[in-house]
């Protein structure tokens, strides 16, 4: 675990305790998860108890204490997508990836999350994979969409 990278991120936020959430966001982005040594280093340098950091790391959806998969599958379950049938899309995606929302498969290929509103309601139901938006998804097309990603 590269302490240098972690220290650089902490320094970028001036080591301020009020920037704790921002530091964690940058660490999450850098490593794709929050490794325990990173949390210990942050606790030491920002002088914040580890218990508080752990609460923050589990309270907010953006953080993960386990590595995420190569492909981040986000199924929108916002109200507009919901009335257009998002729950069935979620079931289909879950079925096809073998994981439920919040989970990552064993090969670290997919991480599945639900999100509430990506702001493209006209395209609902929406599935976003690795930042790419797939609109007007139906249960019949989810398999085809997922097959594009290895």
């Amino acid at each position: 675990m590269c302490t240098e990278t972690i220290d650089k991120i902490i320094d970028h936020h001036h080591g301020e305790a009020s920037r704790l959430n921002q530091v964690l966001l940058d660490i999450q982005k850098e490593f794709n998860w929050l490794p325990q040594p990173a949390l210990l280093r942050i606790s030491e340098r920002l002088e914040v108890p580890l218990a508080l950091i752990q609460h923050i790391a589990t309270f907010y959806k953006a953080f993960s204490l386990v590595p995420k998969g190569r492909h981040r599958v986000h199924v929108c379950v916002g109200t507009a997508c919901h009335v257009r049938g998002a729950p069935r899309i979620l079931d289909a995606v879950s079925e096809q990836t073998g994981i439920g929302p919040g989970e990552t498969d064993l090969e670290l290929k997919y991480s599945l999350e639900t999100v509430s509103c990506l702001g493209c309601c006209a395209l609902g139901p929406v599935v976003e994979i690795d930042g790419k938006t797939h609109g007007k998804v139906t249960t019949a097309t989810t398999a085809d969409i997922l097959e594009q990603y290895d």
Partner: protein
Amino acid sequence: MPLLKTPAELETFRSELAARRDPETPCISICAGTGCLAYGAAELITAFREELKKQGLDAEVDTRGTGCHGFCERGPVVVIHPGETCYLGVKTDDVPEIVSTTIGEKKIVDRLVYQDPATGESAVREEEIGFYKHQQRHLLANNTRIDSKSIDDYIAIGGYSALCKALTGMSDVEVLEEVKKANLRGRGGGGFPAGRKWEGSRNAPEKTKYVIINADEGDPGAFMDRTLLEGNPHSILEGLIIGGYAIGANQGYIYVRQEYPLAVANFNRALEQAEEFGFLGENILGSGFDFTVDVHKGAGAFVCGESTALMTALEGRVGEPRPKYVRSNIKGLYNRPTVLNNVETWANVPLIINNGADWFTSFGTEGSKGTKIFSLVGKIANTGLVEVPMGITLRDIIFKIGGGIPDGKQFKAVQTGGPSGGCLPENMLDLEVGFDELTEAGSMMGSGGMIVMDEDTCMVDVARYFIHFLTDESCGKCVPCREGLRQIDRILTDITEGRGTEADIATLEELSELAMEASLCALGKSAPNPLLSTLQYFREEYEAHIRDKRCPALSCKELISFHIDPAKCQACLICMRKCPVDAIDGGKNRIHVILQDKCTNCGTCFDVCPKKFSAVVKLSGEPVPEPIPEEERVIVRKKKKKP
């Protein structure tokens, strides 16, 4: 980048920009908001630039990626200036024709222009289109006129003139009085008079004060703030600085969802530009007023949109609301006077300063002045963002602007106010939209999400959906919310899955009262609203679910069965092939039958059966008819008689 140190320098710069910009210069504006980017707007911008170069026109024609135009249903949206010719659903293949025809020959490409579905009439100019005609776009209009990445564009259309007027032409008290007079009420959900909030902070004895932009837009289905932040970040920043001046705060914050990367990037860029130009920092425009802004990203918690939770998160902690009986405009961030307002509220401030409170109060209702941006989504023909004056009726928004319900379906309900709001039925469509009007009807304005629902929407499921959302987002600190919503969620799930009992409605009402009265924060207090409003207006649906185990909207998965009508089935094999669990029996010329014990109710067969046959039906509360005898399943196709 010039550092503008005085009002005169700003005006000189503005005039120089105007002098360099010929309004007759053709400009192609392509909507580059998140929605259109998902439609491929980035590729479109590149295609236009390349095509112009190819046709040797790149020196004479500008292209601009702008903020969201609002007509999301028909994106990508392209508007060509001058002339405001509006093309909808533009693809990269259309680009060469547009450049040759509209830029080159100054003619219209008819097939890309809006056509009224009822009358067939074309509308060439953006403002002639029904969707836009009935709006009043004071906030959103600028989105289409500027490149969101360009501060020059913003200054050219008058940007930062309100800041200049406020800092150098008005006293802080005068600014405050103007905002009070305008009766600007919070656009984030609370509807609290901003001027009164500001005044409380201004008068608080503590010297260090803060102003905060609440950009944690969490209501699912609402993306107004995102559009303003992406499309015109400077306008919000300008409002914030004016607010800081009015109350005596030199430090501003923005708390913005990390799920909005484009908004974060555009706002950060706007901050850098504003610093370079001297609109942030020390002695702004020579006024003696200093101001800086810090950016904090959210990390995925809806509850952080609540003001005390947001402030706790800003302090670097978990976003749990605090039980406070002293308002946060007196004791807020770090226990100091803090004015927290929503993105749209801040965006209104420069307009009020420039045009005056009298202008702002000239439209709206008695208690609700100005305009409101709504995200009109769900079962609606024209999905998108609309800006309307307060006082317009729901009917006009949904039918005149929204184009009504698609696919020939019937309107059932409109939900406003997100998870804190309520569902209003058809007989309330003539309600004039306003803060108090919506609250009295059993809903609320909220941040502006407006979800339209049709006959296929199950209202019990809608209540369950919102409660489930809030159960997931609850911070968990107080019992009525954490435990109460958990039980309400369980009971509503039972009802939608056929396990409802007679006592359930009374229990739901009791738990709702507890949550409303005893919860620590507004999340818990307003959580029962969707449930109570649907009980009020759609009680018969609850009763059908509980007593008859029937979902009248044919939506609840556990209560419906899919059945192929043998009279309509043409044995086309499509549903058989698409069924993910091989639950359809049949063959060529052999009428298909769904094997009920294998069927998982995924609904794929219903979706893929060709419209002309519409052989798949949904049943609820009644037994599925037995399959017809094997002999009758064979289709004998009449051979065409040869002449």
